[in-house]
């Protein structure tokens, strides 16, 4: 259940942030002034309802949540920003109580888009910090993309037959004496 809890807390914080952001929730800036972020017409849902819906989902819908982070949020911000959008900077959201514990995040906005999301408070149901968890979490292919072009000297893969070896990257590396 721990994975679910950790994953859930990450999803919960992300959805609180995104939905809150889209629904025009107030956040407090670093200098103490309050600011209302633009409302996205597509996101008319109640943040709390969405949190409880999103949190317990499994990993497959977790990845779709992840893509929401990538695509929807910046788009939601973009049209409004020209007129009334938030100025660049880092905004700290209020602490939100979820079934996984208190969650608080900070967003960095640059040119009307979210460029960074930092969890200030993120606990799982044991109260143990998520950061010290060694659990495997979903990651996007783009997160590992850059490493594909690194020079390697060996390749790890599911055991190849002698015949399959001939067509493998390892074979090419061996011929090059890498």
């Amino acid at each position, binding site marked *: 259940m*721990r*994975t679910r809890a950790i994953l859930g807390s990450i999803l919960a914080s992300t959805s609180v942030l995104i939905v809150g952001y889209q629904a025009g929730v107030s956040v407090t800036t670093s200098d103490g002034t309050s600011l209302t972020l633009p409302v996205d017409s597509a996101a008319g849902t109640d943040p709390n309802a969405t949190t409880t819906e999103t949190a317990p989902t499994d*990993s*497959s819908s977790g*990845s779709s949540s992840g893509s929401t982070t990538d695509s929807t949020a910046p788009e939601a911000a973009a049209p409004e920003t020209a007129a009334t959008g938030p100025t660049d900077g880092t905004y700290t959201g209020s602490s939100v109580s979820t079934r996984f514990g208190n969650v608080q995040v900070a967003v960095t906005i640059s040119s009307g888009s979210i460029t960074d999301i930092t969890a200030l408070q993120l606990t799982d149901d044991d109260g143990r910090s998520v*950061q010290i*968890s*060694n*659990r*495997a*979490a*979903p*990651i*996007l*292919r783009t*997160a*590992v*993309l*850059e*490493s*594909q*072009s*690194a*020079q*390697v*000297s*060996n*390749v*790890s*893969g*599911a*055991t*190849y*037959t*002698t015949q*399959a*070896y001939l*067509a*493998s*990257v*390892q*074979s090419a*590396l*061996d011929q090059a*004496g*890498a």
Partner: protein
Amino acid sequence: MRHVFETMGTVASIELPSAWASERAELERIFRAVDDRFSLYRPDSELSKVADSRLTLPSASSVLLASYARALEWRAATGGNFTPNRPDGTIDLNGIVKAEAIEQAGEYLTSVGCPQWSINVGGDILVSPTGAATAVTSPAGQLAPALLRAGIADPAAPTQLLCSLELRHPRRAIATSGSAQRGDHIWRGGSFEPAEFVQVSVVANDIVTADVLATTIVAGGQAALDDVTDRWDVDVITVDRAGDLRATPGLVSALASAS
């Protein structure tokens, strides 16, 4: 110098400094000895004789019994997800003896004082405690352990890499299990459902742990993945049937940067 030879139905690629090239013969002997004793496709291997009752287990060699005992310990530790017994009861030590042979070859190279080496057998890799390639000098002027950059094959396109990472001491070993290359050869508690993960790579401090736990996660799916990452100090990256990835924080931080 890179030495490539066939063994255990796959290919070994061993990197040694040129001055240690003469060790190749002994390394090949180590792998051949393991293959001869444990291969079920060799009718006269010791394990084949145990399998068809020509040899009883109590009269088997101490080497075979030690491997079997080690495999049984792993079966207990992994809740049966890793098992040395086929569904029909036959003892099959394939899941552990290749890693044991790599371990043995590594211990041999260390014992003769070979300073830097890497051993890759069928996609399971172990590097020397000092690193693998040419030593590099750190900015402080001290000799830093050289890193081995290992690619992980993309199960959807075996001629491409999914990602690359650095094996940093003490994380000297990486093993990958899956159904991408040799078919679905991992038993999953009698289940005929396709495996949840088509490929699992585990980075660990030793090659047997890496190999056994990679097999364990393929066999046990998400529950085994969580159990393994909770209980062992390893890094893991998995590819599921939809092609989606999961990775531990340690693995993400070990990803190689492009160069």
